[in-house]
């Protein structure tokens, strides 16, 4: 049995004071160490909210959240910040590098935050990571001098610098073209395999979802299905995830069965 990394019980998150919006409505979730999971669902279904709670960026309105055996609500502001720094790696849709810094410096920033001072202790590790993401020759480049895909790869290296237990990615490929998307996905998968940290990826992209170990599907603030991909056939998975994420049609050609599935990604930005 895999070890439980993070565990949420009956998580509820409400926004607003006068008019309350329930973004999460009683979610139970357990994530194991080293797991590669995706969350799918329509815009506004609570995917990002859940991710923020798991990443200690926000506190739940009700419910309990444990990291290993530690309960989140017992931690103060400072401890949560420290937790984010050491245990969690964040990857955002719009990469969000600091444009004032070079690629290498951006990767090093979480390590500076950890120690409080600017140092080069993790420099070698940072270069190694940049090499892993295929940017060895770009380490001195100002981060705003890189292409979108390159920037996203820098932000992946940045998420890994402090050896987190869990990488949370919110639409990591949402802003990239299909080629870069593929590269980034392969990279995430490779890192998961090589370094063994758990990944939880919010995505609209069914290609990523399809290739995850586990797919969590959400609707209206609830988890409506949660299964391991290896227990389903590819066709079943495809069928399951496609209607939600794609307005797809199947083109029949030469009497062959659905060879040419055309996916039209949901372009609306998921703001939840």
């Amino acid at each position: 049995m895999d070890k439980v990394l993070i565990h949420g019980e009956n998580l509820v998150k409400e926004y607003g004071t006068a008019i309350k919006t329930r973004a999460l409505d009683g979610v139970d979730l357990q994530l194991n160490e080293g797991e590669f999971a995706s969350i799918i669902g329509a815009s506004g279904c609570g995917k990002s909210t859940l991710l923020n709670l798991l990443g200690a960026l926000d506190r739940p309105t009700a419910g309990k959240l444990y990291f290993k055996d530690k309960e989140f609500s017992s931690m103060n502001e400072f401890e949560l910040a420290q937790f984010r720094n050491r245990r969690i790696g964040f990857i955002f849709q719009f990469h969000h590098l600091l444009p004032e810094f070079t690629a290498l410096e951006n990767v090093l920033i979480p390590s500076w935050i950890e120690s409080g001072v600017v140092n080069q202790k993790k420099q070698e590790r940072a270069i190694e990571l940049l090499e892993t993401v295929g940017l060895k020759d770009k380490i001195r480049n100002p981060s705003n001098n890189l292409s979108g895909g390159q920037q996203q790869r820098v932000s992946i290296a940045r998420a890994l610098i402090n050896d987190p237990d869990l990488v949370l990615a919110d639409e990591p490929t949402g802003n990239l073209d299909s080629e870069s998307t593929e590269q980034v996905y392969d990279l995430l998968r490779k890192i998961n395999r090589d370094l063994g940290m758990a990944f939880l990826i919010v995505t609209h992209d069914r290609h990523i979802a399809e290739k995850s170990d586990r797919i969590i599907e959400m609707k209206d603030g609830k988890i409506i299905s949660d299964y391991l991909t290896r227990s389903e056939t590819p066709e079943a998975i495809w069928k399951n995830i496609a209607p939600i994420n794609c307005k797809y049609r199947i083109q029949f050609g030469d009497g062959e069965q659905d060879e040419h599935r055309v996916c039209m990604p949901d372009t609306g930005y998921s703001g939840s």
Partner: protein
Amino acid sequence: MSYELKIALRFLKSGKTQTLFILMGIAVGVAVQIFLGSLITSLQESLVDRTIGNSSQITIKAEDDEISRALTENNQEEETLLRGNFSVIEKSLNNWSLIVGQLQGDERITAISPAIQGTALIRSAGKNQSIQVKGIELENADKIYDISQRLTGGEPLVEGNSILIGSKLSENLGIGTGGVVSLLTPKGETVRFIVGGVFDLQNESVNESLVFMDLKRAQKLFQLGSGITAIEIQISDPFQADVVAEEWKSQLSEVKIDQWKAQNEQLLSALASQSSSSYTIQFFVILAVTLGISSVLAVSVVQKSKEIGILKAMGSTKTSASRIFLLQGLILGILGSIVGSGLGILLLSVYQFFNQGSGSLVINYTWSGILIIGMIATAAATFASLIPARRSANLNPMEAIKNG
């Protein structure tokens, strides 16, 4: 280097124009303060110097006798008794060498000169004029009056019957160095003196009526024995005169201590109001600079909210998030003060260059004054960054990332 400092520096560097403008704002503010402050201070110093620079700032005299007390206090009841002109030799201070000895150790004293003050009538070539006679020891009196440097003729020497007279008096009497004059004392004695030199103390009434003579000769002239009438003193900080005088009053008995501040209240109140208007201007300059920095940094927080959100997501604490902006304020303040100090000194030299010539004001600045202005500006800049820093601290990382 703390990482907050590194980020603060990069933020400042990335917003070059913004940083440059706000730096110039602080620099101009500091420069104006230095210029204005130095100008006002120098003006006041020059005014005070002209008033008391060459006169006694604290004068120790013997306690008033009945007559002079009645005269000075203008006592109504005794008025009838005191009608008419009086020739006054002030009451003698017999224990003066003791007092001088007692005060000698006081480090605040820059000059101490025993003196005899009296009135007399001067006669020469049939002309009479009432004068003030001052018996002095030239070496000590020079420290106050600087007589030796201000002779227009003759030798800086008061010995025996040799006296020094004012330039205007010399003119009025038509007598110069080497001439002979007679002095008629209040006691009715007439003594002949030789004019050893003519001085110009740059004060019309002094030049017209003052005569310096040797202390010992004056003692004899006014029949004071070994006594004198006053100990004239200058101190290093003239504005402390009242404090020092009070202190001495408790130490010395049977003396009267006058100090210039009591005698120049109007001047002092004029100076005080001048200072306060200068402070008011300086305050508003600082206020304007502070508001400027505050608004620029507030805009910067909005501009950088995404980055701050990211830093927080990666584990930056509230304290760190606010420190990034406090440091920016501090850096701006320090740099602005340095540039502003240079600018202020430049401004002063330019002013000085275009206002050369005799009698024009010499503006002095002190490094300590500039340091204080710089420190105030730096403190103000840091203070100005408090509100932006708080906003940065309270920024919600999710909101910032989502909306950035």
